């Protein structure tokens, strides 16, 4: 009878039924809010959804629906789903995942129908714009995830994006080749993270200080170089060759999602690859196992012969390269010009996405996408015309992020050794 010593791992523990009211409460609150909006600001007319691009193989075209009936119909369905969740809770059941997803899609549909009364809701553009806004955030967040997973907090994502954007613009302008630009962006990102790595790992400077300072340094440096180099030589040095759209034949014809996901530039496909590669690498390869070990418990990693500080050093630089590639998106895809401080704080959003995504590449990507979507939704709503002052509209993505973090994510635990230097005894 050896198994008495480890009962927990052998016999199943007793489990009692507990109610989990969080989902029901959240849905209830959302439903009430939407109902209040729909009732207090009822809208009539027709809402038009544009479901495909002009040149789609399967033209879904534009669909017009009467606003009021659809809004009320959706609301009824939302109430029903909420009731379902409540019933589940009362019966000690866990609501199925599809319920949350269905609720989300319906709520969004209802809201867009309401907001788009007598207007046009370009669905493809809404989604692909959201994807586009989130691209640099995703790259930045991937860099952040790798850095923190290996135990180095990277507050310098903003700086890496900015320097990436700068070097991409410069190199692509000089060579006329966006791939050289991308390479330059990655090198730019590495230059920034090299400083981070050297100071944080070798000289034990508080990692957050280095990060914050690097952001200042890069802002100053790019601002200066922009002024003395790019502005006077605008046409030679600040007109990068860009990545053009590269529709993937076949895939792009998938209704709705095709044009959103597969009518993008090389850099976006590179992002898909990077996300997949980092996710796979982190959980499925020797590299990932070691990275995570070093970030969780460096001493344990040391005792099995993993060289902690070199591991950190190289991976921080890898993270810099990836974040730098995100910088390239600014100047090689979005806008073919470098401008001062053009990253506009997205590096900090990426930092938030890292935590929001619980240090997981896929979840961090989803967090970035949520942010991109909220931003672009804000765009659409203000174009459709709302009586709400622009400043409140512009708050939308940030408010959404707070609600999501406080309402759904809650407590999260990062890599245990992130931020702590490793010194051997």
């Amino acid at each position, binding site marked *: 009878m050896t198994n008495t010593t480890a009962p927990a791992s052998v016999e199943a523990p007793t489990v*009692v039924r507990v109610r989990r009211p969080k989902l029901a409460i959240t849905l209830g609150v959302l439903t009430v809010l939407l109902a209040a909006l729909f009732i207090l600001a009822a809208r009539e007319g027709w809402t038009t959804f544009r479901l495909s691009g002009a040149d789609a193989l399967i033209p879904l075209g534009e669909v017009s629906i009467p606003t009021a009936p659809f809004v009320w119909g959706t609301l009824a369905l939302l109430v029903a789903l909420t009731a379902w969740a409540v019933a589940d809770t009362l019966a000690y059941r866990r609501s199925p995942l599809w319920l949350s997803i269905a609720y989300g899609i319906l709520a969004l549909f209802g809201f867009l129908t309401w907001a788009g009364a007598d207007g046009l809701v370009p669905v493809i553009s809404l989604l692909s714009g959201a994807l586009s806004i989130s691209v640099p955030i995703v790259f930045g967040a991937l860099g952040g995830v790798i850095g923190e997973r290996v135990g180095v907090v990277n507050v310098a994502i903003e700086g890496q994006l900015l320097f990436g954007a700068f070097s991409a613009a410069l190199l692509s302008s000089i060579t006329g080749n966006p791939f050289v630009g991308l390479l330059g962006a990655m090198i730019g990102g590495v230059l920034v993270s090299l400083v981070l790595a050297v100071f944080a790992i070798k000289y034990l400077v508080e990692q957050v200080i280095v990060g914050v300072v690097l952001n200042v340094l890069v802002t100053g440096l790019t601002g200066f170089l922009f002024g003395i180099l790019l502005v006077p030589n605008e046409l030679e040095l600040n007109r990068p060759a860009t990545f053009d759209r590269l529709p993937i034949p076949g895939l792009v014809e998938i209704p709705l999602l095709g044009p959103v996901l597969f009518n993008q530039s090389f850099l976006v496909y590179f992002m898909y690859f990077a996300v997949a590669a980092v996710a796979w690498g982190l959980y499925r390869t020797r590299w990932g196992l070691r990275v995570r070990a070093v970030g969780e418990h460096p001493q344990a990693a040391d005792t099995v012969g993993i060289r902690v500080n070199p591991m950190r050093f190289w991976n921080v630089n890898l993270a810099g390269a990836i974040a730098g590639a995100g910088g390239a998106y600014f100047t090689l895809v979005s806008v073919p010009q470098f401008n001062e401080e053009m990253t506009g704080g997205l590096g900090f959003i990426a930092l938030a996405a890292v935590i929001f995504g619980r240090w997981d590449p896929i979840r961090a990507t989803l967090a970035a996408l949520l942010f991109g979507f909220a931003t672009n939704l804000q765009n659409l709503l203000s174009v459709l015309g709302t009586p709400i002052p622009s400043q409140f509209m512009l708050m939308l993505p940030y408010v959404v992020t707070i609600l999501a973090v406080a309402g759904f994510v809650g407590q999260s635990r990062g890599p245990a050794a992130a931020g702590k230097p490793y010194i051997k005894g």
Partner: protein
Amino acid sequence: MKLELRGITKRFGSLVANDHIDLTVEPGEIHALLGENGAGKSTLMNVLYGLYQADEGEILLDDVPQRFRGPGDAMAAGIGMVHQHFMLIPVFTVAENVALGHEKVRRSGALDLDAARAEVRGVADRFGFHVDPDAIVEDLPVGVQQRVEIIKALARDARVLVFDEPTAVLTPQETDELMAMMRQLRDEGVGIVFITHKLREVREVADRITVIRRGKVVGEASPTSTNAELASLMVGRAVELTVHKEPARPRPGGLVVEGLRVLTPEGVVLVDDVSFTVQPGEILAIAGVQGNGQTELTEAIMGLETRVTGSIALDGQELVGASVRRILDAGVGFVPEDRKIDGLVGGMSIAENLVLDRSDAPEFVTAGTLRRGALDDFARERIEEFDIRAQGPLTPAGTLSGGNQQKVVVAREMSRDLKVLLAAQPTRGVDVGSIEFIHSRIVAARDAGVAVIVVSTELDEVVALADRIAVMYRGRIVGIVPSDTPRDVLGLMMAGAQEAAA
């Protein structure tokens, strides 16, 4: 493989942790290393394992001098170590932990965890125990984590194995199994260094014994020495090994626990319908294998668990639902199971740690300001009274040796007016001299009229202290028995047998 350490000296600043230590471990020998807390045992082993660089001295394997720049080199040379503080990644699975550092990779570049799983099963089968390779380490009971450490070392074919206090967290059965395992390894020709504070174990398994004190080898002892001889060699004075206590004189009142149930947020029942009473002036020991709900029981009493139903009444006052603050104010003292997590704030001084749960008490605070003089005097008194070996009251608690850290926690809890003392694993990792002291303090508290609950996985301790013994198994109390219940009966109860059946 023969291991020889010659003249190893390791200094930390002005402190000489190892002072010209010589040690030889023959193949097929279990060599016990004894010494009080802070004697330098772990340091010596860390030098051997390449974690520290020795300031002087050399390491020889089969008479060949070695130069270890890191644990990687030591491992390659065939040295394995089961660390005092587990070197496991808590969020990894068992297989991942075992694979780490010498991972097998598939052609696709993907990690081959199947190989690691097979390794885990292989070692487990060899020694006849079970470990789920896919369990997350932090979810496992410590005893199992210990095995993972051993598997890690064995999976690499170590020829010299160091066990640094492996039994501190094990139950008697687990300890027996570990010792059987050590013997089996010895018979296979592995040289073993075994560090422990438990003299019984040393005498049972060791072939040779080296005792170190204050960084120096003070002598060898034979496995036939008595406990008392070993203890006095270790500590440098005679040690009282049995607890002297008068019969309990319980008084009315005390702590009444009824129908207590503790759940995880997912609804897993950790403590199931537990009822017992502890009266002032008696010691109730709660025995059981680690991970059978004792931790949650103590935390529920302290108000540290959120999903608690049932009743805990102290002199009629209901404690379920009360804040930790109110429970402390009601007169409950708490020595937590893990001093490093729940007991001490390592970066703060001993003085500050001693008033951590009384940071508003008028004797230490005037107008919101700490009275540093009072704090200091108080700390000096406690240091004196509890024989805490520290440079002074301002020494950061985290830099004390384990035994001394434990004494700080005990001193804090015992210097308040208590009605109930809840002591979980009060002597874990503590040397014999300190055990004697802590036990006598607990008995003194009982005699002063405190209702005492001692939670321990250590049968010796349970038997030594208890007036009554409650045995927990899978969240339930399987029986409350008198303190003279035979050990084998207790053992059976700890494995789940009902009192009557046992």
